[in-house]
């Protein structure tokens, strides 16, 4: 019987597995005819990769209320918010106004900043030189909405 040395003669380096890459199963290699589709194998779709372009600048938030209903944002939906992206005219963004994170559509017109809801029961917030909130910051652009499909 061969006795293995206490310390391995070869240094084994560890693979960094902290950030897993999903790979599909590739046919059976050892015997038989290989699957022709193996030539077309691809990486699995990663939602993180598709939906989050700037991981270090992305946060998520849960919708409370229905002022953005007509844009498809319902109570309990999860919003993906990219803080790296500026909110441009016509886009939906998160704004910090007087101590709250609000979700609105940004409309810029005639030197005014308007934050529009997407529900007729709510009124737009209109700001200009004469009327600005004491605390205002544009947090980031809403890039995706995640909804859980509900049973009727």
């Amino acid at each position: 019987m061969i006795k293995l040395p206490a310390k391995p003669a070869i240094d084994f380096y560890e693979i960094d597995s902290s950030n897993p890459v999903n790979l599909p199963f590739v046919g059976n290699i050892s015997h038989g005819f290989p699957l022709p589709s193996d030539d077309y194998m691809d990486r699995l779709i990663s939602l993180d990769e598709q939906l989050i372009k700037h991981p270090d600048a992305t946060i998520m938030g849960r919708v409370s209320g229905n002022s953005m209903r007509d844009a498809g944002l319902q109570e309990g939906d999860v919003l993906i918010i990219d803080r790296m992206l500026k909110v441009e005219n016509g886009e939906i963004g998160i704004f910090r106004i007087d101590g709250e994170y609000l979700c609105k559509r940004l409309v810029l017109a005639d030197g005014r900043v308007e934050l529009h809801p997407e529900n007729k029961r709510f009124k737009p917030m209109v700001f200009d030189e004469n009327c600005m909130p004491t605390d205002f910051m544009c947090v980031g652009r809403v890039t995706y909405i995640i909804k859980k499909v509900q049973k009727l």
Partner: protein
Amino acid sequence: MNTKEMYALVDCNNFFASCEISGDPKLFGKPVGVLSNNDGNIIARSKELKDLGVAMGAPPFLIKDVLIANKVELLSSNYELYGDLSQRVFNILCTFSPDTERYSIDEVFQKYFGFEYFNLKEHGTKIKDTVYRCTGIPVCVGFAPTKALAKVANRIAKKFAQLGGVCVIDTEAKRDWALRWTKVEDIWGIGRAHTRRLDALGIKTAYDFVNKLPEEWVRKNMTIVGLRLQRDLSGKSSIFFEDIKAKKNIVSSRSFAQNTNDFEYMRERAYTYAVNAAEKLRRDNSQCAEITVQVQTNYFREDRAQDFEAQSMKLEYPTNSSIQLGRAAVQILERIYKPGYLYKKVVVMLHKISPDDSRQLTLFRNEKPLEKHLMKVIDQINRRQGRHTVMFGAQDTKEPIKMKRSNLSKRYTTKWDEMLTINCNK
């Protein structure tokens, strides 16, 4: 002055408090304080809380009136949140310079070599704006030809609002002014003992320290570390990343939820702190050769007997094994524990820290190789399955959840159930 090779120090403003504000918009513009473990002392303050004159380390019960009168928001330490935001800030900074090194949870050093055609003031402003936009964390940036000067530049950026959070020391005149402005006690790495000593010699500012003290004196009285600091401040780069990393000690300690003289409880705590400190060592790929344990009674209770005894132990060989360090900590505690006192705290410190690969060979003994593998496996499991998945027999498995965090904010970046609420009621 050589401005081809510049360093930057990026430092987060009031980091823990800023993290809390980023997760709760209600806190913006308010006096906010963050409490230490077990909600003991105020360890971070928003600008508004500093303006109220509340000191760092103040125990809330002593300043209750101020806190109530000013509606100060006090929060428990949310280390999950701070850790994640610290990582995000670091990652974003990495996009600005190829050479970026974390110095502490809220400070990052960067090298800017070959950036002489860049306007560093503009570059710094871009760094600051990007970090703030992406994370909500305000930072200040200091540029200078050496690290110690970058630290000085950062201080200036923090103190003078008109600089817009960015300060560049790139001429002799600016360096001169900055050194005259910096008091000795504010120089990076000069502690209280050295400050007193230098003060007695008439050395009051960084300018005096650089220009009035001969190198031989500094080397003799403040070791090579002091000498490097002096050279660094004079504009000759002498402090490198490795230097500042290696000299640190690791301290692990928390106040007990209640003052106690229960030895079993204290033994468990000492062991656990040693395990935590050992984890930190392994995370930095380092090892230590000496361990100190100290017991502390409550110094606010002048009516009670006080005991602050500490003892150190040299280890047989440098190690980062939780088992070795835990055992050593308990041995020391057995020596210094006295039954007649009510203790508030036990502190475990590791010293003589060196990189794990520079191990000195001991002839007759060596670390059990098995422990090395064991530690690696334990670290892996705890990293993947969450901290405290694997603990040691000498530890109380229920203790991690007992930590008093009565006002913990949402861990909005790491817990699905605690994400931000977006108000759509307006």
